[in-house]
Structure formats: C-alpha cells, structure tokens
C-alpha cells in the first residue's frame, strides 16, 4: 500500500481540476445532486406516478426527461471510476469497514447510516455538499458558500465529542 499524496500537492491538483472544469464546461464538481437523482431514479422504478407528482422530484421527470441524463450524474460515474482506479494503482483496493478501534462494525455502520441521513437532508437544504458548496461556491467567493463551509466545521466540532467512540 503506497502513501497518500502530500496534501498540498493534492490540493493544488484539485484546484487546477476545478479551474479547468470551469474554464471548459462552465461548471464544476458536485456530489450530492447525483445521489439525489440516483435515489429518484430508483424510486421511479417502483413508484413512478408517486415520484413524477412529487413537488421536489417531479421536475427530474418533466417532459419525459430522465434524472440521470445530467452533467453531474456523468461526473459522478467518472468520480467512481477515478476513485476506483486510484485505489487500484496505489494498492488500497479492498473491502473493509474503516472505523475507530473501540466501536463494533455494527455500531460503526449504524452511525454511518444516521450520519448519511443527516448529510443527505442537509445537502438538499443547503443546495450542495462539501463539493458543490464547499469547493465550488467557495472558489467563486460566494458569501453563502463560505457561510455554509464554516457551519459545516461548527456542526462537526459541536457533535464530535458525542460520537468520539466511533473514531478514537
């Protein structure tokens, strides 16, 4: 297993990627909207009329559109492949439950599920996650995005002590 890149080097590489994506396509990375649309896609398979009439998700299907024919969805496929490729070439590709030493795998997964519900809800409320708001909005010097970013750290530090068993 090889070491991770030097963080500042990774940061510069990421900054260049954000820039070139903006320069060429006029938009850049995001993670949560792909997952929202993926969820809508799966719900549409089991309950099509329900989701087409939903106030929030209905627009993904308006005019015979499909939710995954979307720029950030294609970006999401690429992200998955890129992460997979990097893990492979660096010898980190394995199935495991990463966690702190004290917590049981079940406890870790339960915490992950609740955390995921929080993050998913918040990403829709905030129109983005740490990618779309944190990286993109902040790079465009959007005041709202910086407020969001600092709130993320505040929220994390506020709750960290309560869930320390999961990590320490």
């Amino acid at each position, binding site marked *: 297993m090889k070491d991770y*890149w030097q*963080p500042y080097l*990774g*940061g510069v*590489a*990421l*900054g260049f*990627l*954000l*820039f070139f994506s903006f*320069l060429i*396509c*006029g938009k*850049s990375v995001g993670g949560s909207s792909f997952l929202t649309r993926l969820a809508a896609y799966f719900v549409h398979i089991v309950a099509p009329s329900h989701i087409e009439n939903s106030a929030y998700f209905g627009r993904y299907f308006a005019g015979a559109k499909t939710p995954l024919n979307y720029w950030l969805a294609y*970006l999401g496929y*690429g992200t*998955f*492949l*890129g*992460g*997979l490729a*990097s*893990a492979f070439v*660096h010898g*980190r590709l394995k199935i495991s439950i*990463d*966690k*702190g030493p004290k917590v049981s795998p079940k406890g870790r997964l339960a*915490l992950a599920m*609740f*955390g*995921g*519900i*929080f*993050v*998913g809800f*918040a990403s829709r409320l*905030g*129109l983005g996650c*740490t990618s779309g*708001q944190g*990286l993109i909005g902040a*790079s*465009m*010097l*959007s005041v*709202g*995005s910086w*407020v*969001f970013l600092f709130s*993320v*750290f*505040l*929220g*994390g530090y*506020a709750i960290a002590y309560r*869930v320390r068993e*999961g*990590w*320490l």
Partner: protein
Amino acid sequence: MGPVIKLAGMINSPVDFFLAVCFGFFFGFILESSGLANCRKIAGVFYFYDVTVVQVMFTAIVTAVLLLYGTSAMGVLDLSLLYVPDTYIYSYILAGFILGAGMVMGGY
C-alpha cells in the same frame, strides 16, 4: 474565450457529458490519492489527529480562486457565466451545521 462549451452552445451535448466523465475521473482520482476517500482522515479533522482534509480543501480553494480571478482579469474567462449556488444565508447555516454533524457521525 471561456467557458468554452457554454459559449459554443454545446451544454448537455454528448461532448459536454463526455467531459463530465473525464473531469469526474480526475476528481475521484485526486480525492482518493489525497486520502479524502478515507473516513478516518475525514473524522480526524474533528479530533485534531489528522488535518489532511483541511489542507487539501483550502489549498484547492486558494489555487482555484487565483486561477479563476487571474484568468478573468486577463479576459480569458467570463466569471459571470459560471455556476454559483444561490445565497440563502439562514438555510445554509442550518444545512452546514446538520451536514457537519452528519459528517462526523458517518465519516464522509
């Protein structure tokens, strides 16, 4: 001159979507290579044992800001055509707080 695809009227064309896959690939590759796909590193920020995530994120933001505003000043890139999330301050404070709490619970 930029954003190229937008000025060429090729938004949501197959070329645009192909570029999205390419940018996504590099995005995923860089994140994994920097350790940002490792939940212990992400959680580490909140317990001060590993601040990689903060180093990578803020270096990326500073790099992108310099490139975006530098090229804009040179007239190469029109910033007004780029995507910026709308601003809803109170929603963002609440959303950020909940997202941060979820992040330290889930690790991603």
